[in-house]
């Protein structure tokens, strides 16, 4: 049998060079050859006999009570249902069935026609030919089309199918076949095939069923001038999957030999199966694995064969076969492999993105299709979260430079935030959230802030941290896009080709402003609720490290100071790192502001003096607190009545947060003291301040890697290591004219 098979396949290859009619003849010849082969080889295998019977049986043989037929059918049936059928058997049986040589058993044959390896395309071409004869009952035709769609990825190559594209297209007018035909066309369509403009016009007047719209939108992507009708920007519900007739069998076969049959059929089962939702939910999450089940030798022998994506193992291979790669019917399967993603990046094929988007919408909004209620957002729950389409899409987004906004995910996210419990698929959701394109400030509250607020304040510390982090990433992405895409004049930037919205610079700045202020609020209250937890604080400081550099790094003329609710906890934090980072941030602010000040003259933008004043206040406070102990004194930001301070019984309270006595640094001070005067019994920190020791102490601190602090001191305090009496070390050096 195997020999016969090889011979047959090689035959097919020959045939596939030639045009259609030849090919069919060729395949007939191939069958004949196969016959001869058999006669020589086998000692009367009943199975082969059965095949022989089916290939040769005369038309019009009665089937009622035809025992021979019954026996043979049973033979093949069992073969099909247990192991699946080899290609040439498929073609024989399909031919037999579609030709209606014996009328009735056609449906039964289709039901057990399970390919073991591949489906030879000639078989299908011939079947379509029979379809054109049109003796077959509509229901049977539908069944056949379902069959084709189900096993589409197992068809060895599609070029001949494409060559009869027109024929197939004509069936669109059959309203029963229309959905299936549309799906088939949708899978077959290539850019180079849309030259017969005529039929597209014949299509447009028809009803606006989703399947038609999908097809049309695909055409529109290929050649917009052909499709005149206006299409909605988003389409609900992709094509259905049509696996039901074969479901049971496929399940059985999969149980027996997993991996034999394409697992994207498993996906289709899931999606199709509306009956019990639990099953559907679990199933349809499994991503189709790349599998078009094409023999390697086939593809290598001649150049026109497709190269199956799942056989890409290395990048060079990808480069060699770029021109021969087919997109699979289940676009989702692309998300599985990194090479496939590379391919996607390379081709930059709009149709591919379109199809991916449809697939995604289909996967995410699965629940909607299941229910008449199109609004509540349903993300099916999976036990193994890694196989949810969301995760894979997320992986996809991460693996590439995220320029395409996939609106299906955006709308999904905005809905999902409203019913999110804060734990389900957290990393994925937040990750995707951080990738959404800039939201116009008009609806940013509505879409993002409200739901996030409600989640943020009623959740655990870790959730708060990850939210802040997510927002930080989001800001970074936005700024990057801005710096990449902003046109020279800096006023009008169109963010990317796929998100519908174009933004003016001011609009963009508003959104960013909103975002920063929002995080400021979150951080303030969050820190308060969590008792200034240093973990949260560090995430907040991360965010402000991004904020303080907006002008210099991303030339966005916008500087926003942190709110007091963030500033004070950082300044009086018990861990030196936070203080250090705060110092660093302040330095960056200083540099940005000074730079902005110089540019303000020639540029139109303007940074409000309010910001400068705020900055100065902070600056002054920090210096007077850390450096020259003038905390709580009149004129400072924080003023406290003396008597009150006296009540607290703290010796010289104004000096209680200097670099020596600051709770974050006192440890170092003690350490230093020990190092200097190991013999001393009585601890006296004042002595550290004195003369040289002070410089040494600072060096000591810097040597522990508090570079932020170092920068701060060096930039803000004209303090000369030579003559180090800190008396003239007045905290000044603020940017001129606050």
């Amino acid at each position, binding site marked *: 049998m195997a020999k016969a098979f090889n011979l047959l396949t090689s035959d097919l290859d020959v045939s596939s060079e030639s045009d259609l009619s030849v090919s069919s003849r060729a395949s007939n010849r191939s069958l004949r050859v196969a016959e001869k082969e058999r006669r020589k080889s086998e000692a009367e295998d009943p199975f082969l006999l059965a095949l022989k019977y089916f290939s040769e049986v005369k038309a019009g043989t009665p089937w009622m009570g035809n025992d021979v037929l019954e026996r043979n059918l049973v033979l093949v049936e069992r073969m099909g249902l247990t192991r699946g059928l080899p290609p040439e058997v498929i073609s024989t049986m399909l031919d037999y069935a579609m030709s209606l040589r014996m009328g009735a058993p056609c449906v039964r044959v289709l039901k057990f026609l399970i390919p073991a390896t591949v489906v030879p395309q000639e078989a299908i071409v011939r079947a379509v030919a029979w379809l054109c004869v049109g003796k077959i009952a509509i229901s049977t035709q539908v069944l056949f089309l379902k069959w084709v769609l189900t096993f589409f990825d197992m068809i060895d190559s599609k070029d001949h199918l494409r060559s009869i594209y027109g024929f197939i297209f004509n069936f669109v007018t059959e309203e029963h076949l229309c959905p299936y035909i549309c799906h088939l066309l949708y899978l077959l369509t290539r850019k180079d095939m849309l030259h017969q403009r005529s039929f597209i016009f014949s299509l447009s007047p028809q009803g606006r069923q989703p399947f038609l719209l999908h097809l049309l939108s695909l055409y529109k992507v290929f050649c917009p001038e052909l499709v005149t009708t206006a299409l909605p920007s988003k389409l609900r519900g992709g094509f259905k999957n049509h696996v039901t007739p074969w479901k049971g069998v496929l399940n059985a076969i999969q149980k027996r030999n997993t991996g034999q049959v394409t697992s994207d059929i498993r996906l289709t089962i899931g999606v199709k199966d509306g009956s019990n939702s639990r099953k559907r939910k679990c199933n349809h999450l499994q991503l189709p694995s790349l599998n078009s089940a094409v023999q390697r030798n086939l593809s290598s022998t001649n150049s026109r064969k497709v190269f199956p994506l799942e056989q890409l193992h290395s990048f060079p291979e990808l480069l060699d076969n770029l021109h021969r790669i087919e997109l699979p019917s289940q676009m989702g399967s692309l998300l599985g492999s990194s090479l496939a993603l590379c391919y996607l990046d390379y081709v930059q094929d709009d149709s591919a993105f379109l199809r991916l988007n449809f697939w995604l919408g289909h996967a995410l909004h699965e629940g909607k299709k299941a229910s008449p209620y199109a609004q509540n957002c349903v993300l099916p729950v999976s036990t193994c979260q890694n196989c949810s389409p969301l995760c894979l899409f997320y992986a996809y987004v991460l693996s590439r430079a995220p320029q395409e906004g996939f609106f299906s995910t955006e709308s999904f996210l905005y809905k999902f935030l409203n019913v999110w419990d804060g734990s389900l698929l957290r990393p994925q959701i937040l990750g995707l959230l951080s990738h959404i394109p800039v939201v116009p400030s008009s609806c940013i509250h509505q879409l993002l802030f409200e739901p996030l607020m*409600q989640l943020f304040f009623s959740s655990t510390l870790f959730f708060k941290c990850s939210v802040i982090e997510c927002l930080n990433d989001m800001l970074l992405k936005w700024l990057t896009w801005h710096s990449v895409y902003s046109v020279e004049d800096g006023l009008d930037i169109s963010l990317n080709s796929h998100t519908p919205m174009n933004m003016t610079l001011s609009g963009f700045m508003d959104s960013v402003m909103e975002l920063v202020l929002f995080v400021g609020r979150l951080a303030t209250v969050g820190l308060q609720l969590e008792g200034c937890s240093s973990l949260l604080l560090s995430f907040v400081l991360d965010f402000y490290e991004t904020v303080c550099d907006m002008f210099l790094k991303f030339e966005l003329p916008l500087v926003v100071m942190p709110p007091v609710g963030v500033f004070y906890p950082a300044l009086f934090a018990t861990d030196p790192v936070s203080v250090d980072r705060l110092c660093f941030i302040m330095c960056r602010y200083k540099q940005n502001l000074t730079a902005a000040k110089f540019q303000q003259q020639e540029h139109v933008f303007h940074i409000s003096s309010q910001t400068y004043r705020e900055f100065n206040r902070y600056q002054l406070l920090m210096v007077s607190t850390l450096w020259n102990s003038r905390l709580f004194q009149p004129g400072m930001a924080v003023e406290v009545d003396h008597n009150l301070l006296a009540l607290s019984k703290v010796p010289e309270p104004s000096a209680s947060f200097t670099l020596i006595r600051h709770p974050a640094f006192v440890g170092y001070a003690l350490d230093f003291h020990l190092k200097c005067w190991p013999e001393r019994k009585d601890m006296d920190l004042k002595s550290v301040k004195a003369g040289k020791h002070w410089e040494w102490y600072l060096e000591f601190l810097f040597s522990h890697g508090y570079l932020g602090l170092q920068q701060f001191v060096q930039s803000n305090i004209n303090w000369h290591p030579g003559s180090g009496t800190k008396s003239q070390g007045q905290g000044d050096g603020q940017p001129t004219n606050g």
Partner: protein
Amino acid sequence: MSLLKPFSKLPELNTANILLVENEEQFQQILAETIVLLKKNVNVNVRLARSLPLPIENEKFRPRIDLVVFIINLTSELSYQSAEVSLKFLDPDYFLGKVCFLVTNARNASVPPERLISVRKLVASLHCPLLFAEDQMTDGVNTAAHRLLAILKVTSGHVPMATGLYLSSLTRCTVPSDIDQQNFD
């Protein structure tokens, strides 16, 4: 009819009491067990009720209740209605940040969207926070328990410088107008 009052009793030391109201008593039970088992520095008493008003006879054993949680299962109209009815038996003072709503099955496909909307409207009109919970999954339940506990700690005054009213002013539910429907559908 007897109102449940938040300040009629004195608080006990290091205790916080939460009342879960759900008319079908499945999730209530699980949630209660999870909450009680959570690691925490105050000892928490959970009281389960099917609906308000609470029976008079255990009036005097009942401690001061710091947080009332109405659990609404979106798939059943009944549970929504019973919650709505129970609200009437709650002293107005409770709505100063000592009430919150927990909705389950919000993502269920068979839920008519109007119901979710109406729940939102109700909660928003009461200025209460509205939480969602995945009652099918264990860590979903855990999260819900954690969040309720977090709120409870605030409302029972175990978090310095924060009160229930303050928190609920930040987390109160809002009814999304249909902007997103237009823009993003």
